[in-house]
């Protein structure tokens, strides 16, 4: 119905005209949101909302010197594995 309406608009000539780009734009937007979320999930070792947990505790203990750089990396990798 939308396209029929548009097609009747004389000024836009033949075809659906630039209005057809709107659903296209929205699908691209959603696609990029999904791609971003997936990449973020994979890189950050879990979804952003799960960062307050093991990872925060680990960051803090490392910052205070309770664990060494090696221990930090090791445990971060373990958390990342578990996040998958």
């Amino acid at each position, binding site marked *: 119905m939308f396209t029929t309406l548009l097609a009747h608009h004389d000024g836009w000539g033949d075809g659906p005209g630039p209005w057809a780009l709107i659903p296209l734009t929205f699908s691209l937007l959603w696609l990029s949101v999904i791609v971003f979320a997936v990449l973020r999930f994979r890189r950050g070792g879990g979804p952003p909302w799960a960062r307050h947990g093991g990872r925060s505790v680990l*960051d803090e203990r490392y*910052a*205070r*010197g309770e664990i060494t750089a090696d221990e930090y990396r090791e445990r971060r990798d373990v958390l990342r594995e578990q996040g998958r």
Partner: protein
Amino acid sequence: MSAPAASPTRTAAARVVDASKVYGEGATAVVALDGVTVDLPAGRFTAVMGPSGSGKSTLMHCVAGLDTLTEGRVLLGDVELGSLSDKELTLLRRDRVGFVFQAFNLVPTLSARENIVLPDRLAGRSPEPGWLDEVVRTVGLGDRLAHRPSELSGGQQQRVAVARALAGRPEIVFADEPTGNLDSRSGAEILGFLRRAVDDMGQTIVMVTHDPLAAAIADSVLFLADGRIVDHLAGPSPAAILDRMSSLDRSTPDPTAGG
């Protein structure tokens, strides 16, 4: 009416009384600290030196609440660390102690700014904006705050770590070989920032180092050997420190010398 003392004793930010630390038991026991008593004065820069195995790192870890004593007491301000549970110790370190390490200990996935405010954020405090600006200005990081540690030089990373240590306005900052991973110029810069934190902000700093040039920037230097405090220099020059160190090395039996 009693007159004030001519040279009033400064309040101690931390106090160590008859501290002993023994690792292991029986024949394999290693005495890391052997009856150490010392006051770490507030608003002063104290360096701790000694040959490797002298107990200097153990002393720092015990005062910072990262390790516990076998005997004796550590008071941080008016709190005795031995009386605290693990959870209380964690909270005390979070609220009242700042750290700077040889390996920087920055979180690689966070920006410089996020690293600096990390302790505050995890403690549920919002950093004071004016203070944070001053700290960032002091360490000269203004245009680097959005960078990740991997995008910064070693000297810049250590500046971030110094800013992080100062940001929460801790009662005492412990620096463990803060210049150990830096070239001499970056090292001198970091020492300058620590010095300014003491002079301009009234910060208390305790620094473990083996570098006489680094120790010379402190107000006083404590020398440890075999788990005991064997000397103390006030307002030391690098030459005086070096002299004291070499005499310690001579008097300390060399474990590789056989016999």
